[in-house]
């Protein structure tokens, strides 16, 4: 099992010199002036985890070529995208933050068709990450785990299981995280994300934060991994200029120790 983190360019020097991290997920392409990039590229397995586009619409040639180019640059073993629909079709409104689609037949058909089209153009497997809903939209027609299972069965894509997302959804639904997790198609999991959560003033409750995972989250990770036979990597999911090297390295060490 690989244990890794996200590439945070402001921690480039520390990451280039580190020996306890197996892989780095790339949320952004390397900046032109990033002097640590050559060492990072040589040292690590790199996972493409950029914004490629929302699969509620077909990705255009420009977006697909960008995905292919980045996957080639990183030599990424798989390409990740999110189950998200965050901007309106006409481009007028954009949330600039991951936001899930309606869990309906129509959206399922859209995502399946567009993911299959993207897969056909990639040289690497596609994996898709679950996105937390803070509230339910009454137009949804099925629970998220069923929608995800049908999508994964129809496309053959892998599942990037974001555990804090599942944990948060369970929290806001008043469910035990383990019970909610059991509904998800865990047999498709390729990679697992683990992170910390903190109280958010606007949400009046917990949300994902660039902090270390709690003991409870690590226990949840261990529990989840016993049910994910195909998981190949665990990634500490924190990408923020406010993330410190201490938090990043301590979190990876704690994840590794918990496995």
């Amino acid at each position, binding site marked *: 099992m690989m244990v890794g983190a996200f590439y945070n360019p402001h921690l480039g020097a520390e990451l280039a010199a580190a020996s306890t991290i197996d892989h780095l997920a790339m949320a952004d392409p390397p900046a032109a002036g990033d002097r640590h990039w050559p060492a990072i590229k040589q040292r690590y397995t790199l996972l493409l985890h950029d914004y490629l*586009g*929302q699969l*509620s*619409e*077909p*990705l*255009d*040639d*420009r*977006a697909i070529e960008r995905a292919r180019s980045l996957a080639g640059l990183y030599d990424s073993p798989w390409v990740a995208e999110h189950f998200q*629909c*965050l*901007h*309106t*079709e*006409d*481009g*007028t*409104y*954009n*949330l*600039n*933050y991951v*936001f899930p*689609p*309606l869990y*309906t037949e*129509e*959206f399922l058909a*859209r995502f399946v068709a567009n993911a299959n089209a993207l897969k056909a153009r990639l040289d690497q497997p596609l994996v898709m990450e679950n996105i937390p809903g*803070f*509230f*339910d*939209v*009454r*137009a949804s027609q099925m629970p998220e785990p069923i929608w995800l299972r049908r999508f994964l069965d129809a496309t053959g894509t892998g599942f990037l299981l974001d555990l804090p997302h599942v944990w948060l959804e369970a929290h806001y639904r008043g469910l035990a995280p383990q019970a909610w997790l059991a509904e998800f198609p865990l047999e498709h999991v390729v990679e697992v994300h683990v992170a910390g959560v903190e109280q*958010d003033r*606007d*949400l*009046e409750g917990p*949300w994902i934060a660039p902090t270390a995972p709690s003991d409870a989250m690590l226990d949840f990770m261990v529990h989840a991994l016993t049910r994910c036979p195909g998981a190949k990597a665990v990634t500490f999911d924190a990408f923020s*200029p406010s993330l410190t090297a201490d938090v990043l390295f301590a979190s990876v060490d704690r994840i590794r120790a918990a496995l």
Partner: protein
Amino acid sequence: MNDRALQDEVIRALADAPYRASAEWRGRRLADAGQVERFARFLARHFYHERIVHFFKYSRALARVTARWPEAVLRQPGFDALLATAVLGDRATARAVARLVMAYVAGEEVPYHGDLLRYQEAMMVVEAGPRVWSDTGHGDDRPAVAPPDLVEGTTLLELEYDLPTVLPQLLQPWTTPPDAPRRKTRLLVARSRHGRVAVARASDAIASVVRFADGARTVDDLARAAGLRPGDIAATLRDLTEIGAVRFSTGS
């Protein structure tokens, strides 16, 4: 209404505070109003945190001596008050947020601070507005059939200091803030259809083209106004189109 259109309604409600408060949205009863409001406020703070950190990065660099971090405004009453009318990505909201930042970080630690704030404000405001997320594969290549028109939001900045010479230095390590030459400088700030903001020095000729490109004057009119020869006006318009400052209407 299909599901994609319903999703757009939810996205709009989260992005557009006046719409969120409207009878039209509330009448749809698609989601719990309290939860939507809380998540919308969370999104707004996140949305403008990213933009303030990116566009006011030079003020962040100067915070080493000013101790005023631009993103601190996101936790101040002025921003909370703005949330009731904020529309994410809207140019007026971008300007209002930028003005909060400018009022907070303003100071005289460097003589060019006023220019710097106007520059950063322009970047943030120009970036706002609807954008094209996906190319349809046609349109750009069709022949231009109408006079060139200035793209909404394109801005000419007249500065007292030559900021472009000092901006890279501000982001490097320093103990005393770097100086900027006091020299009248004119910059053009524009945004591509895909949302990429570009800045270029603007000569008198470029400024003239930008000022007169109104969708009515022909290319020949613009060349005469700018004092450019036919070959030069073509190259200038090509450059301005590339950075998103000017567009040509196209035939259908």
